[in-house]
């Protein structure tokens, strides 16, 4: 073993001791930094992944839309379905209505869903808490759980629906009669934005409510392989007529995804400060060691140590602390993530907040997604920061003149 490495190891783990106090505190500093970064990033990734998959599940992979209502939606869906990458395609219409149950009004988003027996773009069955999709017809609705809760709607409830078309007719002195529809299902996706205020109906009912005749607002498409979404959208755009465009779910939810990414970056930036604080602790401890060992450094020079070797004996300590701290941080982070649900439930039990956890976060298990890119980034950063922390003290040590070092008091 080269002597600078030997001396660096001995200064961190002196003979007769497991490790020096300085080594222990420095390693713990790096370990905590890495651990927190890995936990936060993995949980943020988990949430992001969960939300993204909800968006895809609820909004489909690709939507073909035009600037206005267009006809021939069924035919276009049929044509698109012929593409090998497409798993399902169906025309849809959506808008806003006023829904009244008893004396309670609400203004939900209304969307048509495909009720045919073939492959479904939106797997509504998966999210149905009550009722069945097969019960949905032109005289009924499926409502989201949030809406059902706020209005007190149950299966079999009859609600009044007013549409913008009715308001137009009211202007022409026609009598405004709401459409009475029966609630045949309640669904919950886990995505609050949808669950709070959404109503599902058949396409023909939607066309009737909005006066679209045979027109649709677009065609929703689900793919076999989500990773091909951009390529398929490009392919469809090449074959679609002017004014009709295929948009990926990433384009349609660009702002939301940007905020999601921004949140993750901000968390990373904030947590990075733990690592920076740890690096300052390493640097100051090493600097003190260089000052305290000035005469020993002089002796090392006298015994044949070159400035570069002496710098290595101190600089390597930062690197070794980085290696150990990062390894322990990664292992600690993975261990805590493995037992995350047990820890959360224990915490919730202690603070009596289990119900609140389910109500506000809509999950009973903490979602986690391990991204190797994040792991590489965190490990590299921790190693660079720890190693850099040893550079200045090492440089100072190497600059000491042997005669001055030996003379120092």
């Amino acid at each position: 073993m080269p002597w600078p490495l030997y001396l660096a190891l001995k200064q961190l783990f002196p003979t007769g001791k497991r490790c020096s106090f300085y080594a222990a505190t420095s390693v713990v500093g790096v370990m905590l930094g890495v651990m927190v970064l890995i936990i936060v990033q993995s949980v943020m990734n988990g949430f992001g992944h969960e939300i993204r998959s909800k968006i895809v599940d609820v909004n489909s992979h690709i939507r073909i839309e035009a600037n206005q209502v267009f006809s021939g939606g069924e035919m276009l869906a049929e044509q698109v379905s012929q593409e090998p990458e497409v798993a399902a395609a169906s025309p849809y219409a959506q808008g806003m209505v006023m829904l009244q149950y008893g004396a309670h009004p609400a203004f939900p988003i209304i969307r048509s869903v495909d009720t045919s027996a073939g492959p479904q773009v939106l797997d509504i069955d998966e999210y149905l808490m009550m009722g069945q999709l097969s019960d949905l017809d032109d005289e009924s609705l499926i409502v989201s759980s949030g809406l059902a809760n706020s209005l007190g709607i149950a299966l079999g409830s009859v609600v009044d629906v007013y549409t913008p078309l009715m308001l137009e007719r009211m202007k022409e002195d026609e009598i405004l009669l709401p459409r009475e529809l029966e609630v045949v299902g309640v669904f919950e996706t886990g995505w609050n934005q949808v669950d709070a205020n959404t109503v599902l109906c058949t396409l023909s009912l939607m066309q009737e409510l909005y006066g679209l005749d045979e027109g649709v607002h677009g065609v929703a498409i689900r793919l076999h392989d989500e990773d091909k979404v951009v390529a398929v959208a490009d392919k469809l755009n090449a074959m679609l007529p002017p004014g009709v465009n295929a948009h990926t779910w990433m384009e349609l939810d660009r702002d939301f995804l940007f905020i999601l990414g921004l949140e993750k970056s901000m968390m990373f930036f904030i947590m990075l400060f733990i690592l920076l604080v740890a690096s300052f602790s390493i640097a100051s401890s090493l600097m003190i060691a260089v000052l305290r060992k000035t005469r020993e450094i002089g002796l090392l020079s006298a015994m044949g140590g070159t400035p570069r070797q002496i710098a290595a004996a101190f600089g390597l300590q930062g690197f070794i602390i980085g290696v150990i701290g990062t390894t322990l941080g990664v292992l600690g982070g993975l261990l805590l993530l493995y037992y995350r649900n047990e820890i959360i439930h224990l915490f919730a039990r202690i603070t009596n907040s289990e119900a609140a956890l389910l109500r506000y976060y809509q999950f009973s298990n903490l979602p986690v997604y391990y991204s190797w890119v994040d792991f590489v980034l965190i490990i590299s950063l921790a190693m660079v920061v720890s190693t850099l922390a040893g550079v200045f003290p090492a440089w100072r040590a190497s600059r000491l003149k042997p005669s001055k070092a030996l003379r120092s008091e």
Partner: protein
Amino acid sequence: MNDPLLEARSLAKAFPSPEGPITVLSQVDFSISAQESVSIRGESGAGKSTLLYLLTLLEAPDSGELLWRGEPVLNKSIRAVNRLRAKLLGFVFQSFYLMPELNALENVLIAKRMLGGLSSADKTKAEGLLKRVGLEKRLNALPTTLSGGERQRVAIARALMNNPDIIVADEPTGNLDEHTAEQVMDMLLGLCKEEGTALILVTHNPSFASCTNRQLFLQHGAL
């Protein structure tokens, strides 16, 4: 007479000060041959330690010539000088300068580590050296648990570890009481004799100086 192991010709050194350069050494000639022991005495501030640093090239002289084993060294690279110094010279200082993280045996072995690889024979040799300075039962003791005399004995064993041609001892008994100082001095002189190692001894003590083959006195920057 043997060729000198270390020879200095007309060495000079001045240090800058606000009032102008202060000449510490001027035109110093010095030489030491194999197995010879030379003491250098002088008043405090006379430049004894500076002379040692110049002779061992821990500090560069302003002018003069320096030869190690007959070879000029002033124009050599730092790396070459360091390597040569590690083979040629062993150091004993007043304040011992033991590594506090290493035990007695490891402190002796560090000299060998710095020169290159370490073998089991080196460990045996280091143990033997510590035995010869009376520390066979303190091999694993850390410097903080050793007395001043014991620490200096570890430093002497460390200085001898690489079989140097010359031991350079700068006030090796300066931090020790009279009795311990005598013991350590006897040990140093005895070991140098047994090993056939030359000794350059800087000391204030006339009786220790009288034990060497040649006694020099540094005064007004010259020997």
